[in-house]
């Protein structure tokens, strides 16, 4: 009996990818670890190796398909000899985040109790009262709508969680009410009357889902006009899910609030998804808007075709992620760019002199390799540049390692592989590594792990030109060094006007962590070291 080989957990929070190519065919004999497909994820192009051996009986995906972790890729007839456990869809790591329960009034027997605006989920903190649906003296049943509230997501009815007689209305139409604020006072009935009064329209909706429910008070003539909030993910499809481990009520909530439940990690036994898991997932989506949603928030575009011919092309994964990360960096980091110039006349002379040694080692002695070495030394001298900010815990994280990211221009877009432990490597070693890595990057063979863990990034556009530019910090790093094109400029040296090679440098940094003076000092130190590498030995 053939078994399915599903896309295994690729780590790195990778949830899906696009199939670049299928590397096996029906009838192929497949051995363990043999690549099955080439997959483009938002991090890199990777080959997915098989974890089973056998004969391929069916290919379930094709080029261009988006495949999610756990989705079957191929079917394999296990060879009789080796029929071990089929690879199960990887169990997503349990991730529990208990949602705050809706505040419940303490059931005291003495006197009226307050009913406060419960947690409405979806990060809704407050809303404006459109109408009050109960009056003093009304008998209130549990789940009966109390007020109609307009939040920034939708108009919703807030159902009561208590029953009794309404003794006081504490809000009125137009008021802004925050979660936890008292709305009405209720004298609880001695024997909590069941929802006899609320057996008609609207009473079925017992949860505080932010979807409109026709109100019994206002027989709505056009209920379809009140539309639920716009989805925050692309989950608003009508494709039924298959056997998601979640209760029907949980699956319904996910649908109603536009969460793709197949993307939710369950915290229950064997990854069972609870309502709290769905809410936590939704919260997370709101906190870190995905590329799709940040694009969705952009201003509407005009119809460009009115001015001439246009062509629409889908954004590649790399482009999507670049757009998202740079927008996030630009909007969350207060950035300053410091400019300086280094006289690299002597350095260039030495570089040509010692270039042969690098060639013997199989590489070219490039300015970038030298700058990496000097920048590594600068990080030792200025540890606040080898740091990250943890705003949540109000801490600064200092790193003892010294890894430098290199922005590489590839046909697929901008990628930033990281050269590790540059402080422990000499310039020739760095040159060799850099050469290999650049090639690997252009071939899109770098993995997600190769592009993480940088301390600081270098963006060298010198080969293209330019006198200066303002690079954008690559978070969670706090600085980026831009290198423009060096040129021969007339320069006074000891009172004499001489033609010197001048290299313009631009340092953008996170002003939250780095003060202007430090920025200037850091860049000057780098310039000084480029002019006289002895500085590195002395202070680096």
């Amino acid at each position, binding site marked *: 009996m053939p078994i399915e080989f599903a896309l295994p957990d690729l780590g790195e929070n990778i949830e899906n990818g696009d199939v670049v190519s299928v590397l096996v065919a029906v009838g192929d004999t497949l051995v363990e670890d043999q690549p099955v497909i080439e997959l483009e994820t938002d991090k890199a192009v990777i080959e997915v190796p098989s974890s089973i051996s056998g004969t391929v009986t069916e290919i379930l995906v094709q080029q261009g398909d988006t495949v999610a972790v756990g989705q079957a890729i191929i079917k394999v007839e296990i060879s009789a000899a080796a029929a071990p456990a089929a690879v199960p869809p990887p169990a997503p790591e349990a991730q529990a985040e208990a949602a705050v329960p809706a505040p419940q009034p303490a059931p005291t027997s003495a006197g009226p109790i307050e009913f406060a605006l419960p947690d409405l989920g979806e990060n809704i903190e407050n809303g404006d009262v459109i109408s009050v649906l109960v009056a003093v003296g009304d008998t209130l049943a549990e789940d009966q709508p109390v007020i109609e509230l307009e939040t920034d997501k939708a108009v919703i009815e807030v159902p009561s969680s208590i029953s009794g007689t309404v003794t006081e209305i504490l809000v009125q139409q137009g008021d802004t009410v925050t979660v936890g604020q008292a709305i009405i006072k209720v004298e609880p009935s001695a024997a909590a009357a069941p929802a006899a009064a609320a057996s008609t*329209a609207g009473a079925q909706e017992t949860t505080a889902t932010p979807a409109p*429910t026709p109100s*019994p008070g206002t027989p709505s003539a056009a209920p*379809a006009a*009140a539309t639920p909030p716009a989805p925050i993910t692309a989950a608003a499809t009508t494709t*039924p899910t298959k056997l998601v481990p979640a209760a029907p009520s949980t699956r319904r909530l996910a649908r109603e609030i536009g969460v793709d439940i197949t993307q939710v990690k369950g915290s229950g036994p*064997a*990854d069972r998804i609870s309502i709290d898991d769905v809410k936590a997932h939704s919260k997370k989506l709101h906190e870190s808007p995905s590329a799709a949603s940040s694009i969705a928030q952009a201003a509407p575009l005009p119809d460009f075709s009115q001015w001439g011919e246009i062509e629409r092309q889908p954004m590649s994964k790399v482009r999507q992620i670049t757009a998202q990360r740079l927008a996030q960096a630009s909007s969350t980091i207060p950035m300053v760019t410091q400019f300086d110039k280094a006289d690299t006349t002597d350095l260039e002379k030495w570089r040509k002199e010692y270039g042969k040694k690098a060639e013997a080692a199989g590489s070219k002695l490039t300015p970038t390799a030298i700058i990496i070495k000097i920048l590594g030394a600068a990080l030792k001298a200025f540890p606040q540049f080898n740091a990250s900010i943890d705003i949540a815990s109000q801490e600064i994280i200092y790193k003892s390692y010294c890894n430098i990211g290199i922005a590489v221009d590839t046909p697929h877009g901008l990628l930033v592989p990281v050269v590790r432990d540059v402080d422990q490597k000499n310039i020739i070693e760095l040159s060799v590594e850099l050469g290999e890595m650049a090639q690997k990057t252009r071939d899109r063979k770098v993995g997600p792990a190769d592009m993480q863990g940088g301390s600081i990034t270098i963006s060298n556009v010198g080969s293209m030109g330019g006198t200066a530019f303002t690079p954008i910090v690559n978070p969670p790093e706090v600085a980026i060094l831009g290198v423009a094109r060096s040129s021969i400029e007339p320069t006074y040296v000891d009172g004499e006007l001489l033609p010197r090679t001048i290299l313009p440098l631009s340092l953008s940094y996170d002003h939250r962590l780095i003060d202007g003076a430090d920025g200037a000092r850091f860049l000057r130190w780098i310039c000084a070291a480029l002019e006289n590498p002895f500085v590195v030995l002395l202070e680096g």
Partner: protein
Amino acid sequence: MNTTKLAIIGGGPGGYVAAFKAADLGLDVTLIDEEVNPGGVCLYRGCIPSKALLHIAKLLNESREAEKWGVKFAEPEIDLDRLREWKNEVITKMTGGLGQLVKARKLKHIQGRARFVDAHTLHIDKADGDQDQLQFENAILATGSRPAVPGVFRLATDRIMDSTGALELNDIPASMLVVGGGIIGMELGQAYAALGTKVSVVEMLPGLIPPADRDLVKPLQNKVAERFEEVMLNTQVTQLEAGPDGLTVHLQDLDGKKSAKTYDKILLSVGRVPNSGDIGLETTAIAVDERNYVQVDGQMRTAEPSVFAIGDLVGAGLAHTASHQGAMVSEVIAGHDKLVFEPNAIPSVVYTDPEIAWCGLTEEEAKKIGRRIKVARFPWAASGRATTQDTNDGVTKLLIDPETDRVLGVGIAGSGAGELIAEGVLAIEMAALASDIQLSIHPHPTLSETVMEAAEVHYGQSPHLYAPKRS
């Protein structure tokens, strides 16, 4: 011209549930159905009358079996007219109740037949002879299905009945051939057998109740081997001849062997076809597939965005599925427009003696899709309650995901399986693990314990079923 927010065409368990739900959600609803009261095939000519007959069949069978338990009854006398009357009372009571619910909800109910004029207008031929047009914002098509009649059976004779005819109970034929060993054929075949008819079954496929796992069908197969004249599998009806003494049926089996037999009557139960042909779909963008089922998306929405279709018309085949779809579609129309029909488990029940019920994955399906499962089986021979009822031939099984222990399917054969299966549906819908069932206390002595004991089997030993450990 009259207008309505929501027009619902067909008052079966799909249509009337949709209508009631929509009315409860505050929508302006018009329900169009041919009968005085809602009910559809289910109440008038299907589930409900057949259950009434099967109740009588059960009584008859048990009274005969009672002899071996020490109680002997005289051979029962069957007053066919009173039996028919009682069955009709059941129908009237049920459909009349629905009629009252229509009035209580102040639903607009039109007795008549509707067909599309365009994607937002219906033409209605009313039962009272009037004609009308109705303009709607949304419509739900729930026109159901009817028995299929293959060409060879299109003979002008009252000796051929479909399920509707069989439920009319005009007489108790001396002999009857049930054509099609599916759910309807087996249920009605057993009802007539209990009333005294010599029943035979012919089925084209190699087994009875084709969609069920074979181990679940086994107890039924054994029972009908005793009570039916003959069960012919892998056999087709090639020709019919009406004679003075009955219908002569020409049969041919898989090996090409031919035979001819004569029966008083034939019960034709070879499936049902959707009522999609005479409702004016051609005036809209609504598409049907090659078997004439209306094509819908996951929300039951047709190619006409304002029109939905549910139930047998889209191939649901089960009243409870139609009802669920109907309620969901009404919610969608009322503004919950993100809902999708996506159950994890739909129960199927065969109300024979013994009953068969299953939900979620079956072993056959698991095999077909290559999904690895573990099957935990608890035979009713080890159930106390089954022994007290002399129904030891049953079996309860769980289909379990080997990696997570999640329950993916439940199958039950035996008395009351249709009631027991609900626990399986809940377990699958709630994503229960076998251990959740194992650790839930089940009442003793009941047949429901067999579900718990099957879970115990999965974890090694059930207290009442010892199996030597496999090495």
